[in-house]
Protein backbone atom coordinates (compact mmCIF):
# COMPACT_ATOMS: atom_id res chain seq x y z
CA UNK A 1 0.00 0.00 0.00
CA UNK A 2 1.56 3.28 -1.08
CA UNK A 3 -0.24 6.57 -0.63
CA UNK A 4 0.84 9.90 -2.00
CA UNK A 5 1.47 12.84 0.29
CA UNK A 6 -1.01 15.63 -0.33
CA UNK A 7 0.19 19.09 -1.32
CA UNK A 8 -1.05 21.72 1.18
CA UNK A 9 -0.66 24.69 -1.16
CA UNK A 10 -3.47 23.99 -3.59
CA UNK A 11 -1.16 24.83 -6.46
CA UNK A 12 0.06 21.48 -7.69
CA UNK A 13 3.48 19.96 -7.98
CA UNK A 14 4.92 22.44 -10.48
CA UNK A 15 4.88 25.19 -7.88
CA UNK A 16 6.05 23.15 -4.94
CA UNK A 17 8.92 24.67 -3.07
CA UNK A 18 9.39 27.70 -5.26
CA UNK A 19 10.68 30.48 -3.08
CA UNK A 20 9.51 33.24 -5.35
CA UNK A 21 6.05 33.28 -6.76
CA UNK A 22 4.45 31.02 -9.29
CA UNK A 23 3.37 32.09 -12.72
CA UNK A 24 0.65 34.69 -12.96
CA UNK A 25 -2.40 33.16 -11.29
CA UNK A 26 -4.73 34.41 -13.97
CA UNK A 27 -2.52 33.10 -16.75
CA UNK A 28 -1.69 36.51 -18.16
CA UNK A 29 1.53 36.81 -20.13
CA UNK A 30 4.55 38.46 -18.58
CA UNK A 31 3.95 42.08 -19.48
CA UNK A 32 6.10 44.20 -21.66
CA UNK A 33 6.50 47.61 -20.11
CA UNK A 34 4.06 50.17 -21.45
CA UNK A 35 5.44 52.27 -24.32
CA UNK A 36 7.41 55.27 -22.97
CA UNK A 37 7.29 58.80 -24.29
CA UNK A 38 10.59 60.46 -25.22
CA UNK A 39 9.97 63.13 -22.61
CA UNK A 40 7.27 64.22 -20.19
CA UNK A 41 6.60 67.42 -22.16
CA UNK A 42 2.85 67.96 -22.10
CA UNK A 43 2.23 64.78 -20.10
CA UNK A 44 -0.41 64.55 -17.41
CA UNK A 45 1.02 63.05 -14.22
CA UNK A 46 -0.93 60.57 -12.08
CA UNK A 47 -0.06 60.15 -8.42
CA UNK A 48 -1.24 57.19 -6.32
CA UNK A 49 -0.71 57.55 -2.57
CA UNK A 50 -0.56 54.27 -0.66
CA UNK A 51 -1.44 56.06 2.64
CA UNK A 52 1.89 55.48 4.39
CA UNK A 53 3.25 58.48 6.25
CA UNK A 54 5.09 60.97 4.04
CA UNK A 55 3.98 59.18 0.84
CA UNK A 56 1.53 61.87 -0.26
CA UNK A 57 3.97 64.69 0.48
CA UNK A 58 6.70 62.89 -1.45
CA UNK A 59 4.45 62.28 -4.44
CA UNK A 60 3.11 65.82 -4.40
CA UNK A 61 6.62 67.25 -4.53
CA UNK A 62 7.58 64.87 -7.34
CA UNK A 63 4.50 65.96 -9.29
CA UNK A 64 5.34 69.65 -8.81
CA UNK A 65 8.92 69.14 -9.93
CA UNK A 66 7.89 67.20 -13.03
CA UNK A 67 5.57 70.05 -14.02
CA UNK A 68 7.91 72.90 -13.11
CA UNK A 69 11.15 71.46 -14.43
CA UNK A 70 10.34 68.78 -16.98
CA UNK A 71 7.47 70.23 -18.98
CA UNK A 72 4.67 68.01 -17.69
CA UNK A 73 1.31 69.66 -18.36
CA UNK A 74 -0.28 69.02 -15.00
CA UNK A 75 -0.96 66.57 -12.23
CA UNK A 76 -4.09 65.01 -13.67
CA UNK A 77 -5.14 62.69 -10.86
CA UNK A 78 -4.21 62.10 -7.22
CA UNK A 79 -5.85 59.31 -5.29
CA UNK A 80 -5.22 57.72 -1.94
CA UNK A 81 -5.63 53.95 -1.80
CA UNK A 82 -8.57 52.80 0.27
CA UNK A 83 -6.71 49.64 1.24
CA UNK A 84 -2.93 49.82 1.03
CA UNK A 85 -2.65 46.02 1.07
CA UNK A 86 -4.71 45.39 -2.05
CA UNK A 87 -3.37 46.08 -5.55
CA UNK A 88 -5.30 48.53 -7.73
CA UNK A 89 -8.16 47.00 -9.67
CA UNK A 90 -9.47 47.66 -13.16
CA UNK A 91 -11.78 50.42 -11.93
CA UNK A 92 -8.94 52.44 -10.43
CA UNK A 93 -6.61 51.75 -13.34
CA UNK A 94 -9.22 52.97 -15.82
CA UNK A 95 -9.61 56.24 -13.92
CA UNK A 96 -5.87 56.78 -14.23
CA UNK A 97 -5.94 55.84 -17.92
CA UNK A 98 -8.50 58.58 -18.50
CA UNK A 99 -6.77 61.24 -16.44
CA UNK A 100 -3.05 60.80 -16.87
CA UNK A 101 -0.27 59.58 -19.16
CA UNK A 102 2.22 58.30 -16.57
CA UNK A 103 1.92 57.25 -12.92
CA UNK A 104 4.14 57.67 -9.87
CA UNK A 105 3.18 55.59 -6.84
CA UNK A 106 4.41 54.56 -3.39
CA UNK A 107 5.93 54.83 -0.96
CA UNK A 108 6.19 51.16 -0.10
CA UNK A 109 7.22 51.35 3.54
CA UNK A 110 5.43 48.42 5.20
CA UNK A 111 4.88 44.70 4.83
CA UNK A 112 1.81 44.44 2.69
CA UNK A 113 1.78 47.92 1.11
CA UNK A 114 5.20 47.41 -0.47
CA UNK A 115 4.14 44.19 -2.13
CA UNK A 116 0.89 45.79 -3.27
CA UNK A 117 2.75 48.81 -4.72
CA UNK A 118 4.79 46.47 -6.93
CA UNK A 119 1.57 44.83 -8.11
CA UNK A 120 0.12 48.30 -8.76
CA UNK A 121 3.04 49.17 -11.02
CA UNK A 122 2.62 45.93 -12.96
CA UNK A 123 -1.13 46.55 -13.32
CA UNK A 124 -0.53 50.07 -14.66
CA UNK A 125 2.02 48.77 -17.17
CA UNK A 126 -0.42 46.10 -18.33
CA UNK A 127 -2.97 48.88 -18.91
CA UNK A 128 -0.46 50.80 -21.04
CA UNK A 129 0.50 53.38 -18.42
CA UNK A 130 4.19 53.85 -17.68
CA UNK A 131 4.62 53.68 -13.90
CA UNK A 132 7.38 54.54 -11.44
CA UNK A 133 7.00 52.64 -8.17
CA UNK A 134 9.00 53.74 -5.13
CA UNK A 135 9.77 51.35 -2.27
CA UNK A 136 12.19 51.70 0.58
CA UNK A 137 15.13 49.31 0.41
CA UNK A 138 13.87 47.22 3.33
CA UNK A 139 11.29 45.52 1.16
CA UNK A 140 13.28 44.07 -1.74
CA UNK A 141 12.39 40.45 -1.09
CA UNK A 142 8.68 40.95 -0.55
CA UNK A 143 8.55 43.19 -3.65
CA UNK A 144 10.36 40.56 -5.69
CA UNK A 145 8.06 37.82 -4.40
CA UNK A 146 4.98 39.82 -5.33
CA UNK A 147 6.40 40.51 -8.79
CA UNK A 148 6.63 36.76 -9.22
CA UNK A 149 3.09 36.27 -7.91
CA UNK A 150 1.92 38.79 -10.51
CA UNK A 151 3.69 36.92 -13.29
CA UNK A 152 6.35 39.57 -13.85
CA UNK A 153 9.35 38.26 -11.89
CA UNK A 154 11.80 40.70 -13.49
CA UNK A 155 9.73 43.84 -12.90
CA UNK A 156 11.87 46.71 -11.57
CA UNK A 157 11.01 49.53 -9.19
CA UNK A 158 12.86 52.45 -7.60
CA UNK A 159 14.53 51.84 -4.25
CA UNK A 160 15.09 54.52 -1.66
CA UNK A 161 16.73 54.41 1.71
CA UNK A 162 14.63 53.07 4.58
CA UNK A 163 12.90 54.54 6.59
CA UNK A 164 10.70 57.22 5.04
CA UNK A 165 8.10 57.63 7.76
CA UNK A 166 10.41 59.36 10.24
CA UNK A 167 11.64 62.05 7.82
CA UNK A 168 10.77 65.69 8.35
CA UNK A 169 8.97 67.63 5.63
CA UNK A 170 12.24 69.17 4.49
CA UNK A 171 13.90 65.77 4.31
CA UNK A 172 11.00 64.40 2.27
CA UNK A 173 11.41 67.26 -0.20
CA UNK A 174 15.10 66.47 -0.46
CA UNK A 175 14.28 62.82 -1.04
CA UNK A 176 11.91 63.73 -3.86
CA UNK A 177 14.60 65.89 -5.45
CA UNK A 178 17.13 63.10 -5.09
CA UNK A 179 14.94 60.51 -6.78
CA UNK A 180 13.61 62.77 -9.52
CA UNK A 181 16.20 61.76 -12.19
CA UNK A 182 15.48 58.07 -11.65
CA UNK A 183 11.71 58.64 -11.72
CA UNK A 184 12.11 60.62 -14.95
CA UNK A 185 14.23 57.96 -16.62
CA UNK A 186 11.84 55.23 -15.50
CA UNK A 187 8.90 57.01 -17.13
CA UNK A 188 10.55 57.99 -20.39
CA UNK A 189 12.64 56.39 -23.07
CA UNK A 190 16.04 57.89 -23.65
CA UNK A 191 17.38 58.55 -27.15
CA UNK A 192 20.14 56.04 -26.57
CA UNK A 193 17.72 53.25 -25.81
CA UNK A 194 15.61 54.07 -28.83
CA UNK A 195 12.47 52.46 -27.45
CA UNK A 196 9.17 53.71 -28.80
Amino acid sequence: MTQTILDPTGRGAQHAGSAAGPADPQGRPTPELAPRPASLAGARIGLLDNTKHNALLFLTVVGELLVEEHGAASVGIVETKKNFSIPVDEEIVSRYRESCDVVVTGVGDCGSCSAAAVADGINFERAGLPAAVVLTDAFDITGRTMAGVQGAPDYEWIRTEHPMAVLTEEQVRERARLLLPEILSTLTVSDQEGRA
Partner: protein
Amino acid sequence: MTAAPVQHEQHEQHEQHGQSLDPAAAQSAIEHAYEQGWTDGLPVVPATQDLVDRFLAAAGRPAGEVLSHLKQVDRTVTVELLAINAAMAGCRPEYFPVVLAAWQALAQERTTGGGGWQSTSGPAPLIIVNGPLRQELGFNSTGGVFGPGFRANATVARAIGLTVRNAYGIRPHELEQATQGVPGRWSICLAENEEESPWAPLAEDLGVSGNAVTSTLLRTSEFVDNRHTSDPEQLLADFADTIGRSGPWIFRNAGAGVVLCPEHANQLAKAGFSRADVAAWLGEHAGRTTGQLAAVGKDRANENGVRFPGATGDNRDTTDPEQFQRTIADPASMIVAVAGSRNAGISMVVRYFADWSGKPVAITTGTSPQKDDR
Protein backbone atom coordinates in the same frame (compact mmCIF):
# COMPACT_ATOMS: atom_id res chain seq x y z
CA MET B 1 -2.30 17.80 -5.74
CA THR B 2 0.15 14.95 -5.29
CA ALA B 3 3.78 14.75 -4.45
CA ALA B 4 6.21 11.98 -3.66
CA PRO B 5 4.80 8.62 -2.60
CA VAL B 6 5.53 7.43 0.91
CA GLN B 7 7.98 4.58 0.65
CA HIS B 8 7.33 1.39 2.53
CA GLU B 9 10.45 -0.59 2.14
CA GLN B 10 10.15 -3.12 4.89
CA HIS B 11 6.92 -2.85 6.78
CA GLU B 12 3.48 -1.95 5.77
CA GLN B 13 2.13 0.92 7.80
CA HIS B 14 -0.81 0.32 10.11
CA GLU B 15 -2.74 2.80 12.16
CA GLN B 16 -3.59 0.43 14.98
CA HIS B 17 -1.37 0.12 17.99
CA GLY B 18 0.50 -3.11 18.27
CA GLN B 19 1.32 -3.32 14.58
CA SER B 20 4.81 -2.71 13.39
CA LEU B 21 5.46 0.84 12.25
CA ASP B 22 7.91 2.11 9.68
CA PRO B 23 10.03 4.91 11.16
CA ALA B 24 12.23 5.16 8.09
CA ALA B 25 9.22 5.91 5.92
CA ALA B 26 7.97 8.44 8.48
CA GLN B 27 11.36 10.14 8.50
CA SER B 28 11.58 10.38 4.74
CA ALA B 29 8.03 11.72 4.55
CA ILE B 30 8.88 14.39 7.12
CA GLU B 31 12.00 15.37 5.20
CA HIS B 32 9.98 15.50 2.00
CA ALA B 33 7.69 18.11 3.60
CA TYR B 34 10.72 20.19 4.60
CA GLU B 35 12.12 20.01 1.09
CA GLN B 36 8.83 21.27 -0.33
CA GLY B 37 8.87 24.27 2.01
CA TRP B 38 5.64 23.17 3.68
CA THR B 39 6.64 23.37 7.34
CA ASP B 40 6.82 26.11 9.94
CA GLY B 41 10.20 24.81 11.05
CA LEU B 42 8.92 21.85 13.03
CA PRO B 43 8.12 18.42 11.57
CA VAL B 44 4.68 17.96 10.06
CA VAL B 45 2.50 14.89 9.70
CA PRO B 46 2.38 13.78 6.06
CA ALA B 47 -1.21 14.21 4.92
CA THR B 48 -2.76 11.41 2.90
CA GLN B 49 -6.18 11.29 1.28
CA ASP B 50 -7.41 8.67 3.76
CA LEU B 51 -6.47 10.88 6.70
CA VAL B 52 -7.89 14.04 5.15
CA ASP B 53 -11.13 12.24 4.31
CA ARG B 54 -11.60 11.60 8.01
CA PHE B 55 -11.14 15.32 8.69
CA LEU B 56 -13.72 16.17 6.05
CA ALA B 57 -16.18 13.65 7.49
CA ALA B 58 -15.74 15.09 10.98
CA ALA B 59 -16.77 18.52 9.76
CA GLY B 60 -19.43 17.39 7.28
CA ARG B 61 -18.60 20.18 4.86
CA PRO B 62 -17.96 19.91 1.09
CA ALA B 63 -14.25 19.59 0.32
CA GLY B 64 -14.40 22.29 -2.35
CA GLU B 65 -16.29 24.86 -0.28
CA VAL B 66 -14.43 28.17 -0.44
CA LEU B 67 -13.73 29.62 3.01
CA SER B 68 -11.71 32.68 2.09
CA HIS B 69 -9.86 34.35 -0.76
CA LEU B 70 -6.86 36.67 -0.49
CA LYS B 71 -7.13 39.11 -3.33
CA GLN B 72 -3.56 40.38 -3.58
CA VAL B 73 -2.13 36.90 -4.11
CA ASP B 74 -5.26 35.39 -5.71
CA ARG B 75 -5.12 32.41 -3.39
CA THR B 76 -8.10 30.57 -1.95
CA VAL B 77 -8.61 28.46 1.16
CA THR B 78 -11.07 25.61 0.68
CA VAL B 79 -12.31 23.20 3.31
CA GLU B 80 -10.03 20.53 1.85
CA LEU B 81 -6.90 22.71 1.88
CA LEU B 82 -7.62 23.69 5.47
CA ALA B 83 -8.05 19.99 6.31
CA ILE B 84 -4.73 19.06 4.69
CA ASN B 85 -2.93 21.73 6.69
CA ALA B 86 -4.74 20.75 9.89
CA ALA B 87 -3.69 17.14 9.36
CA MET B 88 -0.10 18.27 8.80
CA ALA B 89 -0.25 20.39 11.98
CA GLY B 90 -0.94 17.24 13.99
CA CYS B 91 -4.66 17.71 14.59
CA ARG B 92 -6.87 14.70 15.10
CA PRO B 93 -9.80 14.56 12.66
CA GLU B 94 -12.29 15.46 15.38
CA TYR B 95 -10.45 18.76 15.98
CA PHE B 96 -11.16 19.85 12.44
CA PRO B 97 -14.55 21.49 13.16
CA VAL B 98 -12.70 23.72 15.66
CA VAL B 99 -10.05 24.61 13.06
CA LEU B 100 -12.83 25.42 10.60
CA ALA B 101 -14.60 27.70 13.07
CA ALA B 102 -11.30 29.36 13.98
CA TRP B 103 -10.44 30.02 10.33
CA GLN B 104 -13.90 31.45 9.72
CA ALA B 105 -13.72 33.60 12.85
CA LEU B 106 -10.35 34.96 11.71
CA ALA B 107 -11.57 35.41 8.14
CA GLN B 108 -14.26 37.83 9.35
CA GLU B 109 -11.57 40.04 10.90
CA ARG B 110 -10.98 43.01 8.63
CA THR B 111 -7.21 42.74 8.53
CA THR B 112 -6.99 39.06 7.56
CA GLY B 113 -8.56 39.92 4.20
CA GLY B 114 -6.10 42.79 3.80
CA GLY B 115 -2.47 42.94 4.83
CA GLY B 116 -2.66 41.39 8.30
CA TRP B 117 -0.81 38.19 7.53
CA GLN B 118 1.96 40.15 5.75
CA SER B 119 2.30 42.82 8.41
CA THR B 120 5.54 44.02 9.98
CA SER B 121 3.68 43.49 13.28
CA GLY B 122 3.73 39.72 12.77
CA PRO B 123 0.43 39.34 14.61
CA ALA B 124 -0.68 36.15 16.37
CA PRO B 125 -4.20 34.73 16.22
CA LEU B 126 -5.93 34.48 19.59
CA ILE B 127 -8.32 31.52 19.46
CA ILE B 128 -10.77 31.04 22.34
CA VAL B 129 -12.90 27.87 22.43
CA ASN B 130 -16.20 27.61 24.31
CA GLY B 131 -18.66 24.78 24.84
CA PRO B 132 -18.73 21.11 25.87
CA LEU B 133 -16.48 20.16 22.96
CA ARG B 134 -13.57 21.62 24.96
CA GLN B 135 -13.56 18.63 27.31
CA GLU B 136 -14.58 16.06 24.73
CA LEU B 137 -11.55 16.95 22.65
CA GLY B 138 -9.14 17.54 25.52
CA PHE B 139 -8.58 21.29 25.18
CA ASN B 140 -6.71 22.82 28.09
CA SER B 141 -8.59 25.60 29.85
CA THR B 142 -6.71 25.66 33.15
CA GLY B 143 -3.04 25.64 34.15
CA GLY B 144 -0.60 26.87 31.52
CA VAL B 145 -3.34 27.76 29.10
CA PHE B 146 -1.07 30.03 27.05
CA GLY B 147 1.68 27.46 27.09
CA PRO B 148 2.45 24.12 25.44
CA GLY B 149 1.57 20.59 26.45
CA PHE B 150 -1.86 19.94 25.01
CA ARG B 151 -2.36 18.49 21.56
CA ALA B 152 -5.71 20.11 20.81
CA ASN B 153 -4.61 23.63 21.78
CA ALA B 154 -1.22 23.35 20.11
CA THR B 155 -2.30 21.82 16.83
CA VAL B 156 -5.44 23.88 16.20
CA ALA B 157 -3.38 27.08 16.49
CA ARG B 158 -0.60 25.60 14.37
CA ALA B 159 -3.10 24.60 11.65
CA ILE B 160 -3.93 28.28 11.14
CA GLY B 161 -0.27 29.15 10.67
CA LEU B 162 0.38 26.35 8.21
CA THR B 163 -2.67 27.38 6.20
CA VAL B 164 -1.46 30.98 5.96
CA ARG B 165 1.95 29.72 4.89
CA ASN B 166 0.88 27.04 2.45
CA ALA B 167 -2.57 27.89 1.14
CA TYR B 168 -2.01 31.67 0.96
CA GLY B 169 1.71 31.34 0.20
CA ILE B 170 2.62 33.95 2.81
CA ARG B 171 6.00 32.83 4.09
CA PRO B 172 8.49 34.56 6.41
CA HIS B 173 11.03 36.82 4.67
CA GLU B 174 8.96 36.73 1.47
CA LEU B 175 5.42 38.07 1.57
CA GLU B 176 5.41 37.82 5.38
CA GLN B 177 7.34 40.83 6.65
CA ALA B 178 7.25 40.56 10.46
CA THR B 179 9.92 42.84 11.88
CA GLN B 180 10.30 40.59 14.92
CA GLY B 181 6.97 38.79 15.15
CA VAL B 182 4.90 38.09 18.21
CA PRO B 183 5.82 35.43 20.80
CA GLY B 184 3.14 32.79 20.65
CA ARG B 185 2.39 33.25 16.99
CA TRP B 186 0.53 30.14 15.75
CA SER B 187 0.32 28.72 19.27
CA ILE B 188 -2.29 30.73 21.21
CA CYS B 189 -5.44 28.62 21.37
CA LEU B 190 -7.14 28.41 24.73
CA ALA B 191 -10.37 26.99 26.01
CA GLU B 192 -12.31 29.20 28.36
CA ASN B 193 -12.40 27.91 31.92
CA GLU B 194 -16.18 27.92 32.03
CA GLU B 195 -16.21 25.70 35.13
CA GLU B 196 -14.41 28.27 37.28
CA SER B 197 -15.67 31.42 35.59
CA PRO B 198 -18.24 33.49 37.47
CA TRP B 199 -19.83 34.58 34.22
CA ALA B 200 -21.58 33.01 31.23
CA PRO B 201 -19.30 31.55 28.55
CA LEU B 202 -17.67 34.29 26.48
CA ALA B 203 -19.25 33.25 23.18
CA GLU B 204 -22.66 32.93 24.80
CA ASP B 205 -22.41 36.51 26.07
CA LEU B 206 -21.58 37.48 22.49
CA GLY B 207 -24.64 35.70 21.13
CA VAL B 208 -23.43 32.18 20.27
CA SER B 209 -24.15 29.55 22.92
CA GLY B 210 -22.58 26.09 23.02
CA ASN B 211 -19.53 25.14 20.99
CA ALA B 212 -18.01 28.24 19.46
CA VAL B 213 -14.74 29.98 18.63
CA THR B 214 -13.98 33.63 19.32
CA SER B 215 -10.87 34.99 17.62
CA THR B 216 -8.88 38.03 16.65
CA LEU B 217 -5.27 38.93 15.87
CA LEU B 218 -2.91 40.01 18.66
CA ARG B 219 0.11 42.28 18.76
CA THR B 220 1.18 40.71 22.01
CA SER B 221 0.03 39.49 25.40
CA GLU B 222 1.35 40.84 28.70
CA PHE B 223 0.82 39.41 32.16
CA VAL B 224 -0.49 41.26 35.18
CA ASP B 225 0.53 39.67 38.49
CA ASN B 226 -1.55 41.02 41.35
CA ARG B 227 -2.19 38.79 44.38
CA HIS B 228 -2.14 41.05 47.41
CA THR B 229 -5.07 43.39 47.21
CA SER B 230 -8.68 42.66 47.96
CA ASP B 231 -9.79 45.97 46.47
CA PRO B 232 -11.33 45.33 43.04
CA GLU B 233 -10.50 48.82 41.80
CA GLN B 234 -6.84 48.45 42.73
CA LEU B 235 -6.82 45.20 40.78
CA LEU B 236 -8.52 46.81 37.78
CA ALA B 237 -6.17 49.80 37.97
CA ASP B 238 -3.25 47.41 37.55
CA PHE B 239 -4.81 46.13 34.33
CA ALA B 240 -5.60 49.66 33.19
CA ASP B 241 -1.97 50.68 33.63
CA THR B 242 -0.77 47.84 31.43
CA ILE B 243 -3.48 48.44 28.82
CA GLY B 244 -2.69 52.16 28.79
CA ARG B 245 1.04 51.96 28.30
CA SER B 246 2.31 53.88 25.31
CA GLY B 247 4.60 51.34 23.62
CA PRO B 248 2.04 49.49 21.54
CA TRP B 249 -0.13 52.54 20.97
CA ILE B 250 0.27 53.90 17.42
CA PHE B 251 -3.20 54.99 16.33
CA ARG B 252 -5.73 57.33 17.94
CA ASN B 253 -6.98 54.41 20.02
CA ALA B 254 -5.69 50.90 20.59
CA GLY B 255 -7.57 47.64 21.16
CA ALA B 256 -7.08 45.24 24.02
CA GLY B 257 -8.85 42.64 26.08
CA VAL B 258 -8.10 40.58 29.17
CA VAL B 259 -7.87 36.86 29.80
CA LEU B 260 -8.52 36.75 33.52
CA CYS B 261 -7.40 33.93 35.76
CA PRO B 262 -10.26 32.44 37.81
CA GLU B 263 -9.02 34.15 41.00
CA HIS B 264 -9.16 37.62 39.47
CA ALA B 265 -12.46 36.96 37.70
CA ASN B 266 -14.11 35.72 40.87
CA GLN B 267 -12.70 38.56 42.96
CA LEU B 268 -14.25 41.05 40.54
CA ALA B 269 -17.55 39.15 40.28
CA LYS B 270 -17.89 38.98 44.06
CA ALA B 271 -17.47 42.75 44.14
CA GLY B 272 -20.40 43.01 41.75
CA PHE B 273 -18.63 43.43 38.42
CA SER B 274 -20.18 41.82 35.39
CA ARG B 275 -18.06 41.14 32.31
CA ALA B 276 -19.38 44.38 30.77
CA ASP B 277 -18.64 46.28 33.99
CA VAL B 278 -15.02 45.15 33.87
CA ALA B 279 -14.71 46.35 30.28
CA ALA B 280 -16.40 49.65 31.07
CA TRP B 281 -14.10 50.32 34.05
CA LEU B 282 -10.98 49.49 32.05
CA GLY B 283 -12.17 51.53 29.09
CA GLU B 284 -12.62 54.56 31.30
CA HIS B 285 -9.33 54.27 33.18
CA ALA B 286 -6.82 52.90 30.65
CA GLY B 287 -4.83 55.65 28.98
CA ARG B 288 -2.19 58.30 29.41
CA THR B 289 -2.16 62.07 29.69
CA THR B 290 -1.23 64.16 26.70
CA GLY B 291 1.93 65.16 28.55
CA GLN B 292 2.93 61.52 29.05
CA LEU B 293 2.25 60.78 25.39
CA ALA B 294 4.16 63.89 24.30
CA ALA B 295 7.19 62.55 26.17
CA VAL B 296 7.22 59.56 23.80
CA GLY B 297 6.21 61.43 20.64
CA LYS B 298 2.69 60.06 20.40
CA ASP B 299 0.45 62.81 21.74
CA ARG B 300 -1.50 63.75 18.64
CA ALA B 301 -3.32 61.63 16.07
CA ASN B 302 -3.25 63.06 12.55
CA GLU B 303 -6.11 63.07 10.04
CA ASN B 304 -5.44 59.38 9.28
CA GLY B 305 -5.61 58.54 12.97
CA VAL B 306 -1.87 57.86 13.27
CA ARG B 307 -0.08 59.23 16.33
CA PHE B 308 2.80 61.70 16.00
CA PRO B 309 4.67 64.20 18.12
CA GLY B 310 2.22 67.06 18.04
CA ALA B 311 2.77 69.32 21.01
CA THR B 312 5.12 71.47 19.05
CA GLY B 313 4.63 74.40 16.72
CA ASP B 314 0.99 75.21 16.21
CA ASN B 315 -0.14 72.70 18.79
CA ARG B 316 2.17 73.78 21.59
CA ASP B 317 -0.18 76.17 23.30
CA THR B 318 -3.45 74.45 22.51
CA THR B 319 -2.80 71.06 24.06
CA ASP B 320 -3.42 70.57 27.78
CA PRO B 321 -0.69 68.26 29.09
CA GLU B 322 -3.03 67.07 31.84
CA GLN B 323 -5.74 65.96 29.43
CA PHE B 324 -6.35 62.22 29.76
CA GLN B 325 -6.50 60.27 26.50
CA ARG B 326 -8.25 56.93 26.63
CA THR B 327 -6.62 53.89 25.03
CA ILE B 328 -9.86 52.04 24.31
CA ALA B 329 -12.34 53.66 21.94
CA ASP B 330 -15.26 51.41 22.84
CA PRO B 331 -15.28 49.11 25.89
CA ALA B 332 -17.72 46.83 24.04
CA SER B 333 -14.75 45.89 21.85
CA MET B 334 -12.91 44.32 24.80
CA ILE B 335 -12.68 40.55 25.08
CA VAL B 336 -13.05 39.56 28.74
CA ALA B 337 -12.37 35.83 28.95
CA VAL B 338 -11.53 33.53 31.86
CA ALA B 339 -8.81 30.90 31.60
CA GLY B 340 -5.96 29.45 33.60
CA SER B 341 -5.50 27.77 36.93
CA ARG B 342 -7.09 29.04 40.15
CA ASN B 343 -3.71 28.84 41.88
CA ALA B 344 -2.58 32.48 41.64
CA GLY B 345 -3.65 36.00 40.69
CA ILE B 346 -1.95 36.13 37.29
CA SER B 347 -3.89 37.29 34.25
CA MET B 348 -3.08 38.37 30.73
CA VAL B 349 -3.72 41.56 28.79
CA VAL B 350 -4.21 40.61 25.15
CA ARG B 351 -3.43 43.47 22.84
CA TYR B 352 -5.25 43.55 19.50
CA PHE B 353 -3.53 44.00 16.18
CA ALA B 354 -6.54 45.97 14.92
CA ASP B 355 -10.25 46.16 15.54
CA TRP B 356 -12.20 43.03 16.50
CA SER B 357 -15.34 41.82 14.76
CA GLY B 358 -16.93 40.82 18.06
CA LYS B 359 -18.57 37.82 16.43
CA PRO B 360 -17.93 34.24 17.57
CA VAL B 361 -18.42 31.39 15.08
CA ALA B 362 -20.38 28.27 16.06
CA ILE B 363 -18.51 24.96 15.78
CA THR B 364 -20.51 22.50 13.71
CA THR B 365 -19.70 18.83 13.30
CA GLY B 366 -20.58 16.33 10.58
CA THR B 367 -23.86 14.46 10.83
CA SER B 368 -22.06 11.12 10.98
CA PRO B 369 -18.59 11.83 12.29
CA GLN B 370 -16.22 8.97 11.74
CA LYS B 371 -15.15 7.19 14.85
CA ASP B 372 -11.51 7.66 15.52
CA ASP B 373 -9.97 4.28 16.03
CA ARG B 374 -6.84 5.20 17.89
